[in-house]
């Protein structure tokens, strides 16, 4: 049998497109080309254009694979031109999953910013799947404006779940917005979890990562309990091309999630 080619992307049809915000869209694939665990990522191919890495936003337990993506560069711009029924390529899963078994019986603290909520949603859904195993799940999420909040259609249902505690903020409010205003760190003045034992998970733009991490460290989270989704230029996804290396870590192989313990010695881990 021929060896599996790690550079080959499995052709997959886009079954549904959900516009989340003016710049963020969720692409739902027809079926699930491979199994993954929360925290792992995939490389998405726009045929003939190229690839970019994304962490699924769907639950590892779902029958479909979903990606929530912001239009920022060459590949994502081409991706946003695609319609339902068009083909994509997917290869993965890559990277290390979250060590979820370590958090059984604990409170979990999740902090997201902007489109950074996408990979955290996959984690959140995986935790919900086994909710009985966790004491409580806290979600703190910040977006630029109310329009920029992702998963607006899902949030009301999540908020109803017992043992889920969600708070939101926007940088700039509008007439309809009744919630907090300010960057996401305003939601971190009061952290209602057992800080000594709880894991925290952070994903968002670099500046948000920097200040949230700083706040979590000050609050007293264990450094190896602060899980950070690292952004990095990736090409191969399999620890060979060298592009994603940050310090001694290959983000594609050792990450994409590293702990503060891992990256705190790096001069500027969030760029």
């Amino acid at each position, binding site marked *: 049998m021929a*060896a599996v080619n790690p550079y080959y992307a499995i052709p997959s049809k886009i079954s549904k497109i959900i516009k989340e915000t003016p710049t963020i869209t969720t692409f739902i694939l027809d079926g699930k080309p491979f199994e993954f665990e929360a925290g792992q990522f995939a490389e998405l191919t726009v045929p*003939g254009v190229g690839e970019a890495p994304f962490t699924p936003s769907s639950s590892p337990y779902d029958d479909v694979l979903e990606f929530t993506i912001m239009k*920022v*560069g060459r590949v*994502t711009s081409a991706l946003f031109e695609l319609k339902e029924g068009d083909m994509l390529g997917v290869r993965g899963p890559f990277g290390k999953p979250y060590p979820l078994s370590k958090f059984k019986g604990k409170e979990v603290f999740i902090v997201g910013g902007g489109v950074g909520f996408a990979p955290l949603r996959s984690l959140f859904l995986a935790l919900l799947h086994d909710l009985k195993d966790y004491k409580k799940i806290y979600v703190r999420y910040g977006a630029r404006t109310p329009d920029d909040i992702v998963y607006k259609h899902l949030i009301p249902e999540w908020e109803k779940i017992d043992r889920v505690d969600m708070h939101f903020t926007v940088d700039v409010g509008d007439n309809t917005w009744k919630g907090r205003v300010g960057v996401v760190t305003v939601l971190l003045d009061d952290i209602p979890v057992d800080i000594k034992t709880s894991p925290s998970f952070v994903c968002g733009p670099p500046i948000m990562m920097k200040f949230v991490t700083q706040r979590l460290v000050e609050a007293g989270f264990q450094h190896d309990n602060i899980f950070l989704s690292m952004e990095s*230029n990736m*090409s191969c996804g399999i620890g*060979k091309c060298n*592009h994603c290396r940050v310090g001694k870590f290959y983000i594609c192989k050792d990450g994409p999630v590293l702990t503060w313990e891992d990256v705190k010695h790096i001069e500027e881990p969030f760029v």
Partner: protein
Amino acid sequence: MSMKIYLLPSDNLLSFVTQLSKTGSVFYPALNGSAAHMVRFNKEGTFEPVFQKIRSAENIKHFLFPSRDIVAKFPNDVRPKTEKQFIFGVKNCDLRGVEVYDRVFLKSEPIDPAYKQSRESTVLISADCPDPEDCCFCNLVGLHPYCTGASDINMTPVTRGYICEAFTKTGEQLLEKHADLFTDCSKEDQKEREKIHGAADRKLNEINKKVFKDTLSDKVANADRKAQHDARKNCVECHACLHACPTCYCFLLSDYTKGKEYERVRTWDACYYAAYARVGGGANPRSELDQRFWNRFQCKFDFFKQYEGLYACSGCGRCYRGCSAKIDIREILWQL
């Protein structure tokens, strides 16, 4: 340890090469100007191999991991067959490159099929490097100027011909298959080889009197910003050092459409390019040349050493020879 050692009389080299060329391409170093360059053997043309010179201007990467290679095709992933190739005159420094690629592409999961295919269809016939030049420093990165086991067959030119020593099953089988061209290697031949090796080692030690400190990795890891800046101040960003390097293996994947199909192409990349680490949104963790320049040192002398236990540097000196500003990597490392 040597599995088989024979002598190829000088007059039989052409026959050996001609016979090999019936089953694949043969490449060998030939003089062009003052440097050796790898050329393809053509039985109609001249055959003037040069084994005494230092490594060829081209590095071994061209043969195993070409600058442009199709790594996947869509929707039907069909890999073209690779032709067998025999590479004569590879020096031990270039074999450090092969060691590095083997570790990255074959020994760490997942295996890279394109590399595996070209590696398996390549026979490496190394040659001693009896006359190291000013740019050479393989002795500083743990190598001798002669192969001690990393090739399929090693050749040492001696008075009576070429001592050919097989280090792999492939090499051994090749020598056995062409046994009629070879004779026994005498004790005198082997003594001559020892002398050649000793002289080459001595010359190299003369060129590089100072060794690298045992703490080199730490020194590289902890170099301050001033040291990093001073190291690169003459760099004009021509990137010759990286493309000429046999141990640099960075690459970039790009897709190209071909009618209704498309191909995924791997091209060499280099960490000195400003956009190398830039992400889709535009942020760049190594936007400054100081950072990019030092990244190369960290990659070769700190990270690779940490992960794999050896420097990702061959001491071939191509970076120094090719550098527009004549930056000598040794000087930078000695000063740390």
